[in-house]
């Protein structure tokens, strides 16, 4: 138990998770911030919110993603940011599951830039030659990523894990938390 606690609270693991999740949100907010009208259209497809709430959500969410991603990496409020991002992931997962249960075939519109990079990297001959396992994993992660499916839900769960690890990390004083 103490070994698990030592690994869980290890500063290197904490930093790796902060970097992974922070960069994920910073890059995924780029596309939304650069074209908010397109993001509004995508969010509208989910048919979950009334007009006013949808406009506030679609307008504000990219800012939340960008700010909390930056604070997760660069600030002493990393635990608060991780808590917020965990909540966002739970909301995304709930929205995706609701879309699946309603039998809708819609574009996920999540992590577009990152997934396109991951797809290009995963199909590069160099990676296929040197790390076929990683290449397969990246390609599988991006295949059919545009439509909402159980794979999309799993991908969010996959990224929720390091976010929760940061939010509930035993590390506090050493990582700069006030």
């Amino acid at each position, binding site marked *: 138990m103490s070994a698990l606690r030592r690994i869980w609270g290890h500063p290197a693991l904490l930093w790796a998770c902060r970097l992974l999740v922070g960069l994920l949100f910073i890059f995924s907010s780029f596309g939304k*911030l650069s074209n*908010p*009208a397109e993001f*509004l259209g995508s969010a509208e497809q989910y048919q979950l919110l009334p*007009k*006013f709430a949808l406009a506030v959500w679609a307008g*504000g*969410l990219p800012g939340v993603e960008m700010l909390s991603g930056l604070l997760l990496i660069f600030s002493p409020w990393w635990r608060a940011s991780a808590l917020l991002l965990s909540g966002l992931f739970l909301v995304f997962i709930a929205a995706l599951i609701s879309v699946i249960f309603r039998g809708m075939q819609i574009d996920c519109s999540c992590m577009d830039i990152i997934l396109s990079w991951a797809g290009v990297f995963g199909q590069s001959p160099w990676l296929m030659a040197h790390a076929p396992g990683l290449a397969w994993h990246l390609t599988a992660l991006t295949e059919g990523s545009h439509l909402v499916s159980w794979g999309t839900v799993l991908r969010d769960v996959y990224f929720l894990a390091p976010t929760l690890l940061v939010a509930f990390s035993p590390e506090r004083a050493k990582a700069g938390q006030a």
Partner: protein
Amino acid sequence: MLPKRKDLWAALFIFCAGMALGLAVNALSPKGFDFRMAAGLKQAFQPATDWDDDTPSAAAKPGDPPSPKASAGEQP
């Protein structure tokens, strides 16, 4: 370690600041959407009704008095 109460307050503050940032970027961006229109606070521009059109939607209802055109023998 469980997050403390101040972490929850900080998360709420970050959320509010992020929403404000996102809405400000949307308002300033050339590709941003019209917030009032999207929120349903403002209607899209609609041209004034043309009272002289002869489309079926403008046709008289059964109980209405005959229009000058109809009384002059014109087909709707």
